[in-house]
């Protein structure tokens, strides 16, 4: 069995899980408080999604276990939630300073008047950051992000 692991980080559980529920019919799983999902591609290939919550610092040590082994790390960046922006920027910094795993920043577009261009500039400051738009209503969008994550 070949298992590919992808941590999905975000402020809200519903947002991080969305990318998975769009792709897999399998229910969410839980192991002692850690939510994860299994996408079976065939008998031999599976993708594990780990949903990591930024809010719960007690689980940060899990990041140390999971992230170094992941093919890429997905961060859900919601423009519609101004309070999460600073937190997300800190998370990106933490990920970049502590791990060599590529960080894929998936932004959920919003209609609000946030200084999107400013933050985008901030996010693109370092050349290695990968930035996508994630439409939580479309399976195709989740699929494209997954393809980008494994395209290394």
């Amino acid at each position, binding site marked *: 069995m*070949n*298992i*590919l*692991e992808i941590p999905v980080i975000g402020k809200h559980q*519903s947002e991080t*899980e*969305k990318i998975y*529920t769009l*792709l897999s*019919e*399998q*229910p*969410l*799983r*839980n*192991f*002692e*408080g*850690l939510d994860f999902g299994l996408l079976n*591609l*065939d008998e031999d*290939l599976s*993708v*594990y999604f780990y949903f990591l919550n930024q809010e719960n*610092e*007690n*689980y*940060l*040590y*899990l990041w*140390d*276990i*999971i992230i*170094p*082994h*992941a*093919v890429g790390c997905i961060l859900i960046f919601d423009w519609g939630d101004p309070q999460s922006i600073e937190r997300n920027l800190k998370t990106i910094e933490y990920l970049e300073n*502590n*791990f*060599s795993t590529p960080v894929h920043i998936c932004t959920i577009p919003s209609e609000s008047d946030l200084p999107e261009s400013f933050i985008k500039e901030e996010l693109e400051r370092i050349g290695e950051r990968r930035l996508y738009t994630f439409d939580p209503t479309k*399976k195709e969008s989740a*699929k494209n992000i*997954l*393809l980008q994550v*494994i*395209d*290394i």
Partner: protein
Amino acid sequence: MVEGLVITKEKSLFEEFNINFSSERNNFEYADSVDSAREIIGLEIPDFLVIIEKGAKKTHDLLTDLFENNEINKIPVLCYISSDEWSQRDILWKINVNDIIQLPISKEELHFQLERFISDISEITFDQTEAGMHGKLEDYNLLDLIQTLEANKKTGILALYRYREEGKIWFHKGNIQDAKYKTFKPLIAILKLVSWMDGDFSITFVDEEYAKIIEEDNKQILLDAIQYIDQRHKILDSLPDRNETLLISPEADMDRMDDKAFTYLRFFHGGNTISAYLESFDQDDLTLLGEIRKFVDEKLLMTRQEFDSHKTEQELQAEGAGIKKAFKRFFTRKDNVDGDAEKKKSAQKAKDLDEDEILNETGLKKFDILFEKESLDLKKFKDKIEKL
């Protein structure tokens, strides 16, 4: 409750309108085009239309497009046009709009105009009907109302309102002729409406003979309804609260399920409530609740709390190996990770404990118990994902 449908291309205008003027008595829906307006009207006919389309000609075209359908023609219309177009307003009066208001307008004045308009249309509606009565379902439920109309041999329409939903039952000389609620069949519509314990009702007595669509007589319908309520209560009492989010068990094998069960269970993918479930399928509640009951009995559906504390069979088996072992080991020292100093201390402790921890050339921590990406053929993954 008065329901208005606001048609405008600019959603912000509707939002402003909605924030300022919706109340316990008024409620507004939004449509950005003629097509979406038709769709909304198809589901439920609003009490009035508000068109915010600045240009008189554009408003005229929009209305004539909508007015092809005669039913729409009966809905009172309120138009807003800009002062530049004010002189053109005659074309709107000619197609019988009920009122035209000039923009820009102050919020207070708009409020006043809107109140006046709503009270005017209430009078029109009142004039059109011969006589009627209205009240709250908390005081008279549907069963009481059916019996009252039957005893008095009344002919007319009984309408029930709850939140933003509406159901109707047609009577002729006290006999139930037909019923409509969403897309349900008439008898199922009545059974669904019977379970409404709150909301409003109105009865309009109209001297018109309605076709008998429902075969059963009142006695049979009432009997079915009473049994139905009884059964429904029994099942609901044995299930988790209908507004609690339920999740699919990690052990549910969706691939081996038959299509029907799959469709019902799939509704709870990512979490959903029994209330939402009952509103989403075209079957009667008993059939739907029966399915849920099976899922709950077989532990295929569970509450978030149950879900979080659930250990799957597979996980129990895998406890000694791989990633599960890693999780378990790290969870046992989760109390030590508060603050940086504590974290370092616990990392050091972990290092001492974990013989199998190795350091790679970048100095990053690495645990050999996790799956290594180097050994994976990503091309194979890519091919499979592309076919999803």
